């Protein structure tokens, strides 16, 4: 789940998991409204980015009580992740650092093996090596116990390889829902002297431009054809696949009213801002 600060990523996750109440539209999880639906909510785990715990509880006490909420809880995963992050079991929750609170949230989320696991900017406060631990553990858990994991992040390129599908929010609505590979194919990057770039791009839509002296980097909507590559070779231009970050950044600048990457996914969520959502595993 991608989008600028304040577009509604956390709110959407809160709505889906019944933490807040919707004021309109419809939310279905496994075909039912999740609000106060015990059987559905038991299949969810959503530790908020700013999750508040009972101050008097230690990490160990929190981890001793959470298994009772989840029938598929993995003590092995919990122990392994706690060890990897070096979480202090005897420390009270109010004494945890920002990074330790994120590590605790990751531990609970992964060990819960909840069918719908929400991770709300789970990397906050984690340094690069700790984030690497998180990505490794996330992939390991997913490989061993596949389930729906919904991750909100601003570190798009860092997490891009983890994602199968991207939901891009804009102004509280779903701007794009797309397969990540399709999103990557939805634009490409051309880099060279401005005149050469303009000649190759022609009439095609340029999503973003960056200049460094005489060099222009242009993110162009669409896929680069064989002719493009041949022309680029002749003119010594560089053509690269645009990163997901560049695609999302471009969306932040351009309204996606006609060329959404989700166009050929067999549904039109990419084209319509929607207040309805449905989640099934």
């Amino acid at each position, binding site marked *: 789940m991608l989008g600028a600060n304040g577009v509604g990523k956390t709110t959407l996750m809160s709505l889906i998991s*019944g*933490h807040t109440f919707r004021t309109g539209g419809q939310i279905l999880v496994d075909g039912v409204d999740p609000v106060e639906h015990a059987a559905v909510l038991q299949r969810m*785990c959503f530790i908020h980015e700013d999750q*508040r715990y*009972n101050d008097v509880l230690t990490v160990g006490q929190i981890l001793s009580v959470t298994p009772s909420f989840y029938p598929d809880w993995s003590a092995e995963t919990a122990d392994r992740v706690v060890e990897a992050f070096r979480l202090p079991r005897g420390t009270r929750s109010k004494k945890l650092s920002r990074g330790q609170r994120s590590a605790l949230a990751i531990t609970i989320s992964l060990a819960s093996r909840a069918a719908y696991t929400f991770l709300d900017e789970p990397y906050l406060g984690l340094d690069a090596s700790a984030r690497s631990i998180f990505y490794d553990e996330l992939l390991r858990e997913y490989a061993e116990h596949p389930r729906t994991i919904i991750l909100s992040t601003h570190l798009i390129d860092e997490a891009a390889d983890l994602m199968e599908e991207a939901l891009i929010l804009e102004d509280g609505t779903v701007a794009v829902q797309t397969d990540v590979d399709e999103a990557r194919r939805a634009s490409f990057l051309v880099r060279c002297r401005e005149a050469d770039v303009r000649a190759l791009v022609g009439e095609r839509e340029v999503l973003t431009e960056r200049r460094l002296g005489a060099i222009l980097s242009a993110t162009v909507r669409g896929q680069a054809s064989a002719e493009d590559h041949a022309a680029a070779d002749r003119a010594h231009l560089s053509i690269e696949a645009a990163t997901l970050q560049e695609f999302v950044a471009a969306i932040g600048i351009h309204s996606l009213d006609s060329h959404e990457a989700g166009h050929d996914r067999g549904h039109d969520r990419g084209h319509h801002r929607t207040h309805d959502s449905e989640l099934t595993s």
Partner: protein
Amino acid sequence: MTHALPNLRLYLANRTWSVLTPIYILAIMTGITVVITAIIGIATGLPIPDDIRHDMRFNGGAIYCIPGFLISVGALAMNRNFSMALALGSTRRHFWIGTALGFVITSLTLGVGSLVGLGLERLTNHWFIGARAFDVTPLGDGDVVQTFTTTTILALLSLFLGALFGTVFRAFGAVWTTVTAIGLGLLLAGAAALVVASWSEVVTLIGTLGPWLLLNIAAVLALLAAAGSYVVNRLATV
């Protein structure tokens, strides 16, 4: 009930906080009572004389020491545990039921604790020096059933009052918590005015029900606070 039990475990996760500290408070209250009695004994001699021993029957320490801490326990349980429970996939309904079961356990533990205190107090002939912490009029002058019931219901009332405030704070914020506190204060003032205005009937009622009158009122208030916290809890968001 299956879905409520994890919430009960969440409430009991730190037993020092949810169960043992209230017992410690009773023990500290007893210790303070014994120390004060011993200090009095410096002037009167120990054990203290019968007239002072009689006056000590009105020691309300066992009543006063309970509400403060338990109101905070109730408020924190409903406030902090709420967001944890929902994060872990609980419904609001099951969170409330599980936490309320925890309140019952805390209250029954305190009730049993007061009985143990009463038993020890009698066994030691009031802690060897005439000190009275549990064998007192506010707890029924040594009546076992009344001592247990008074302590338990007072604990329940404190916990559910705290739960009501904690839930209102969670659902509506600080302003409405203040409004609720002022509203309850006005209700109590109104009730007090009613008692004064109908004093002769109240005296008759006291004659009929005796010490159980206040207990019944406390039980009704606890039920009202519980119902209020349940209703507001269903509206609370994380």
